[in-house]
């Protein structure tokens, strides 16, 4: 148990630091790299929460594909160097206020409800396991699974249509 705590503490620290690194990098490409790092540590956190499938999806889809898109968009716009950002006066106080509420909620929950949380394994069971997900996907959610194929097909058609419309054959 204590090993888990140490692991979590270290990981959480890395997650927060990489998030801060992303926020404060002057170069947008560095920000993106920090974000990849952040996504990867979050994937390990998912592992610790006994959700290996989500962890895997986090790595392949977020740290992999979506970050590639981010990088391409950054380069597409030529926005590596941050220009003079337009700042509105209420943004910073609002962000600080929201973050404060979130932190307060977390602290409150931890200190008042700590004993009433069930142990993690008991609460989640084997639900995050690819085996379980596979079985659910092919029985209880079969129709949703096939509908997702249509959804992805439409997305491909739409992306190709919109981005290359005029030059298409």
């Amino acid at each position, binding site marked *: 148990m204590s*090993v*888990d705590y140490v*692991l979590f503490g270290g990981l959480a620290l890395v997650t927060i630091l990489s998030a801060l690194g992303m926020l404060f990098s002057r170069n947008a490409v560095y920000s993106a790299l920090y974000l990849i790092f952040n996504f990867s540590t979050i994937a390990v956190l998912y*592992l*610790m929460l006994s959700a290996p*499938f989500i962890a*895997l*999806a986090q790595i*392949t*889809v977020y740290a*992999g*594909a*979506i970050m*590639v*898109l981010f990088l*391409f*968009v950054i*380069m*597409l*716009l*030529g926005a*590596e*160097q941050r220009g003079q950002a337009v700042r509105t006066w209420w943004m910073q106080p609002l962000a600080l206020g929201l973050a404060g509420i979130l932190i307060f909620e977390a602290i409150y929950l931890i200190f008042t409800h700590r004993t009433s949380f069930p142990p993690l394994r008991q609460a989640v069971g084997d639900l995050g396991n*690819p*085996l379980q*997900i*596979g*079985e659910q*996907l*092919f029985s209880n959610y*079969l129709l949703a*699974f*096939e509908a*997702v*194929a*249509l959804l*992805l*097909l439409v*997305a*491909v*058609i739409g*992306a*190709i249509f919109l*981005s*290359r419309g005029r*030059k*298409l*054959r």
Partner: protein
Amino acid sequence: MSEYLPLVVLFILSTLVAAIAVALGHLFGPRRPTERKLQPYESGMTPFGPGTRRMPVRFYLVAVLFILFDIEVVFFIPWAVVYRKLGLFGFVEMLLFAGILEIAFVYAWKKGALEWE
């Protein structure tokens, strides 16, 4: 968490191998810098212009297609895990799923979305 121990070992090992390779190069490689060598490398040519030129929008399409087919892969994983249990039924359902997405591929191909001209 102990079932992930091999994964951790793999990570550590791969990091170590990479670090050792870099360190060995630093230790034993001769270093005779000239001005030419310190310049950024661009396919053997003298670099010109800023390194941050804007890229053509085609890359965007490639990235989007990558995401969509990546999501397809994510669906393959749970299927592969239960494949034996599902038997023919699972095979047919996956064939349908993959078949529909293959049509996305055919569409992209025929429309020339993968060509670079």
